[in-house]
């Protein structure tokens, strides 16, 4: 989705709705004759005509500069999955974060997903309820996009998702806030003009190992046979703030380890290993070069010594007998032996 022009009064969706309606109706009309009358939806009209779109939820998905291809694709995938999402140009990192609130207001969005890349390595995601609401910052890991060939499922573009949460989300208050944020951000509003009337995929949010794992599955059969569509990522919660992109910290994750710290620890571990090996080697060297301990001679050692009796001197006059040679030097080679046998 290209970044739409910033219009005053938010005229964007209105025009697009009309277009979409036409497109769908055309399709339906051509198929209408072929379809049997027994099906419920002979003509599937535009979603808005089915009911009134009241839940005006709009999400702004954009990023800072310095993101890599994977992050860009993840953002695009999220925009594909969420028809109520809007795009915007990359934000300069010089601007402070509360500028994002103004951007959201201009675009008439009330939720925001902001991806921030640091050091071209670490990706942070902010999710926030724009005017005053709470916001949260996550470290994103293990990103897999829609385009990966192992994700074999497919779904309608803009179909409404089912959201599946872990029971753990109800145990802690910060998880409850996050759950509410996720529900409002990720669920497509009913009768949204760009949505499809079917529900054919599920988003799952699970808490494992103090992280939130996100998966997206396609519902193939009514007996709950599922295939993964993607994208998938892992969110590591850092902080929950009271305000949008700022404000007092409501919750700080005690087990969060910044990626820099993590890398530093890995490096230290590797260095410590090397140092240990070196120390062991040095110790061995020292041991080798150290003079061997000479035991002090005990004066009383000789007390119990009894010299042995002298043996008579035996002079050999005859040469000793030759040894019996066991090896048969005249044994023929195997080949020759076989030839002999054959003859």
């Amino acid at each position, binding site marked *: 989705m290209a970044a739409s022009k910033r219009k005053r009064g938010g005229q964007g969706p209105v025009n697009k709705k009309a277009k979409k309606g036409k497109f*769908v109706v055309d*399709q339906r009309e051509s*198929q209408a004759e072929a379809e049997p009358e027994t099906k*419920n*939806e002979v003509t*599937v009209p535009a979603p808005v005509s089915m009911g009134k779109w009241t*839940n005006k939820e709009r999400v702004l998905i954009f990023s800072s500069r310095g993101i890599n291809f994977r992050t860009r694709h993840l953002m695009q995938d999220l925009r*594909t*999955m969420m028809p109520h999402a809007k795009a915007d140009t990359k934000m300069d990192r010089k601007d402070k974060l509360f500028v994002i609130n103004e951007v959201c207001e201009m675009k008439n969005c009330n939720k925001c997903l902001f991806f921030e890349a640091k050091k071209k390595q670490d990706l942070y995601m902010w999710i926030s*309820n724009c005017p*005053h*609401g*709470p916001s949260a910052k996550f470290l994103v890991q293990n990103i897999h996009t*829609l*385009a990966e*060939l192992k994700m*074999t499922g*497919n779904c*309608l*573009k*803009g179909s409404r*998702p*089912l*959201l*599946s*949460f*872990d*029971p*753990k989300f*109800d145990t802690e*208050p910060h998880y*409850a806030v996050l759950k*509410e*944020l996720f*529900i*409002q951000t990720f*669920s497509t*509003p009913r009768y949204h003009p760009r949505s499809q009337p*079917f*529900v*054919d995929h*599920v988003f*799952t949010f*699970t808490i*494992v*190992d103090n*992280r939130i*794992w996100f*998966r997206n599955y396609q519902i193939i059969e*009514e007996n*709950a046979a*599922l295939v993964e*569509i993607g994208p998938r990522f892992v969110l590591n919660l850092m902080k929950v703030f*009271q305000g949008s992109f700022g404000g*007092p910290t*409501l*919750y700080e994750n005690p*087990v969060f*380890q910044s990626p820099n*710290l993590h890398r530093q620890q890995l490096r230290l571990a590797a260095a410590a290993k090397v140092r240990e090996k070196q120390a062991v080697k040095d110790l061995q060297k020292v041991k080798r070069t150290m003079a061997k301990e000479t035991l002090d001679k005990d004066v009383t050692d000789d007390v119990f010594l009894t010299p042995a009796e002298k043996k008579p001197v035996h002079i050999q006059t005859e040469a000793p007998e030759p040894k019996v040679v066991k090896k048969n030097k005249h044994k023929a080679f195997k080949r020759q032996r076989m030839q002999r046998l054959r003859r």
Partner: protein
Amino acid sequence: GLLKPGMNVLVDKSKTLEGLKLCLAGLHKGLAWVERLDMTNPPADEVLTNAEGKVSAVSNGELNADDDFQREMFFYRQAQATVLNALPLLNEHDIATKRPDDYFAEMAKSDQHMQKIRKKLISKQLILEKAKKLHEQRKFGKKVGDSKESRAMMSAVKKYQKGITDKLDFLDGDQKMSSNLVFLALLQNCVFNSFLSPSAKRKFKDQKFGFGGKKSGKKWNTKESFNDVSDFRAKVAHGRGEKGGRKGKGGKQNKRPGKSVRRKMKGRS
């Protein structure tokens, strides 16, 4: 020891708890379930896996994040449980989950992409099948060319090569053998096999640079080598060769400036 994450936590729990609760209250919209379509449920119990005993019912406290299969099965079952619970509710609200076969709308992944995925899956399947076939063959001790005919063929070729038999009977009149097996047997026993292996690149290099080492026992400065004047270039020998060419073209073709000039250049830059 050093401070590790999780050790030094200064949290004023009462304040933050209040704050979180207030936030939640403020955030809450009070939408009907139809708008949200959310479900909170533990993973479903898979009857099959329980029978096999592979995946035990673990809660996510015990779930090992590093065990990929277990983890992904956990997520899968959670999604399944959601779908199973949500379907009746969706039916109540007249929301369909199955789209009719002729409903053509834009999909999240393009058709081209799905074709690529299909191709990859098919190729993987083929590889698996081949591997299975090979494995089965190996299991029952059969090798390629292990049939009686091919074994007879190979022994015949070997005998010919070792000089035991002079006859090339195996080449012609093979009613039983297919031409493939003849070729295979010959190839496997071929003396020229060792010469087939070096690549064209290797051959070129051998040709150009020789086989290296001292030219043991070979004479040089023989009559022939002395009389060989093919390497004589008259122009170069009589000094008329490239001097004119170099000066004619330009001052410094390949000529590197001298040490003093270079030092001066270095100082300048």
